[in-house]
């Protein structure tokens, strides 16, 4: 009896965690893959954005026929067919998300490195600077976004006043400007995340050996040279690691879009997760929302897997 209970005790201990991981990670992943092959006749047709997706026999389905219809891979084919509404949306969303990731991630990482170097000095009052860079991490993204909406207000918003000071006289209300809305989201994300990424560089800097710097000093390297040729390369593991969390966070955190760019009807600033939310809860386009979720899972799995392979190889 004791033998038996001892064998099963550890399983029992991990059972709660296993259950919730199964219920809210594994099962939904399987379910969403399944559901993306089903078409629901919209329960609220009046609220559905008209869809051009040609599903055989579905257009004429009576409204009473609300159950799911198995459509196989139709949504996936539609994604890559620019003639359908779904394909057009997908192309736009992917382009937005790619731009968003490719711009916010490198800039916030670079700023994080600069911040860390600047405050990694034994100076009086440096704690204040550290607080200034890190506090946006503690702020809800919605709060950050509401503050920034004001900054982008036309005429007297602080962002516009500052830009005018530097001689910019372009469009003013960034959040409702189709060409600039995406950039306004990026600015908020960079401002909020740079301080968070900074702490990883700070920890990295404090673990660096002193002798490399002494060698660089002897070679007569100046401060900038030391940073570019010695410090940054030595912290490449930190950079790889920070890049991964930065990319994951860029895909996941879209709360600012809910307050800033929701008024843009045409989707010029829609990010992938925001589009999933909109398709499911606003347009009630269930199948499409599920398909986009699958695409997102695939992208993130590819990224984490690549990172795993990369860091394993570096580890050798």
């Amino acid at each position, binding site marked *: 009896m004791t033998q038996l209970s001892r064998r099963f005790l550890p399983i029992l201990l991990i059972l709660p965690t296993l259950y919730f991981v199964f219920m809210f990670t594994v099962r939904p992943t399987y*379910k969403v893959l399944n559901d993306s092959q089903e078409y629901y006749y919209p329960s609220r047709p009046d609220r559905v954005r008209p869809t051009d997706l040609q599903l055989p026999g579905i257009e004429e389905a009576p409204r009473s026929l609300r159950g799911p219809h198995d459509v196989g891979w139709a949504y996936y084919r539609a994604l890559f067919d620019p003639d359908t509404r779904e394909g057009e949306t997908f192309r736009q969303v992917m382009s937005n998300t790619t731009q968003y990731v490719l711009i916010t991630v490198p800039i916030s990482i670079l700023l994080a490195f600069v911040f860390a170097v600047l405050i990694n000095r034994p100076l009086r009052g440096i704690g204040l600077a550290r607080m200034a860079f890190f506090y946006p991490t503690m702020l809800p993204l919605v709060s950050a976004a509401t503050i920034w909406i004001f900054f982008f207000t036309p005429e007297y918003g602080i962002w516009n006043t500052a830009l005018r000071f530097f001689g910019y006289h372009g469009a003013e209300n960034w959040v409702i400007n189709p060409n600039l809305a995406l950039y306004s989201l990026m600015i908020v994300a960079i401002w909020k995340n740079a301080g968070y990424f900074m702490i990883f560089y700070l920890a990295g800097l404090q673990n660096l050996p002193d002798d490399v710097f002494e060698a660089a000093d002897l070679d007569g390297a100046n401060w900038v040279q030391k940073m570019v040729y010695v410090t940054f390369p030595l912290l490449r593991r930190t950079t790889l690691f920070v890049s991964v969390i930065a990319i994951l966070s860029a895909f996941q955190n879209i709360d600012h879009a809910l307050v800033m760019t929701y008024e843009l009807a045409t989707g010029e600033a829609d990010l992938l997760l925001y589009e999933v939310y909109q398709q499911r809860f606003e347009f009630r386009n269930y199948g499409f929302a599920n398909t986009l979720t699958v695409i997102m899972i695939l992208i993130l799995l590819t990224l984490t897997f690549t990172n795993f392979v990369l860091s394993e190889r570096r580890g050798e």
Partner: protein
Amino acid sequence: MLAEQHKRIHYGQWMTNVATIVLAALWLVPIVWALVVSLRSPDDSLGPDDVWFGETITTESYEKAVDLAPFFPEWKDGHLTRSYYSNTIQFVVLTLVVQLITVTLAGFAFAHYDFFAKKLFFYFILLQMMIPTAILLVPNFVTIREFSTADFLIPKFIYYHEFNLYDTPWAVAMPYFGSAFGTFLMRQAFLEVPDELVDAGRIDGCRWYQLLWHVYLPPSRPSLVAFGLVSVSFHWNELLWPLVVTSDKARPLTMGLLRFTQLSDIGAQWSLVMAATIIIALPLLGAFLIFQRQFIRSFLHSGVK
């Protein structure tokens, strides 16, 4: 020559100091502006060249914001009314309490025991780190909606009871009850407890829970605190998931702010909106200002994989 080099170093240091001050000031502008404007009167609207202090400094905006939306509970008919604050605290505490239990137990099992398919189970749990819960909002919403009608917990033929999780703190908290990050963090902490201590405990005849409580947990408390701080900050600030699974009763602070900004009669009354922003962010921000080092150290763990 030496003097010149000295001067150059001095000059460089001066430059970095200026850069630090300028960047820190830039980063502080949003919160300082929000604080300043929240102290204007709600009727004192902003205009060109008039975006900072108003004519007077008052807390009127805070009072009006609290009147307009149920941020704080009120005593009415012998009980407290529902409010954004109590909702947020409810689901944050619920999440934290359950997480602390599941994470400690699982971390202990992985650190202390050898068992069947241990590695496989471990990687299974780590799946949660590869597929973040946030992106699974659509299928998880369906799960929450039909939680009681499916055979998730207990097969229907044994026990059947219909209940609705939607718009309760449970719906907001449940996807986070199991935490891969926490399990990993606690496993690492438990692995660092010296074997001699564990053996000594065993010789003294400790049962597994005594071993966990008296030997493993005391030296691992910093990790548990770090996990708790990160969990509370993350859930306090969360918006998208609560937006999906709550509607009215269980609406948390972040959603309250979102609704508040969309109230038609508020329009561009920035002082009101900023007062609301400060109201929802203040507890965490205040805690951070007091326990800065603790928070930063904890968030350093949050990237652990």
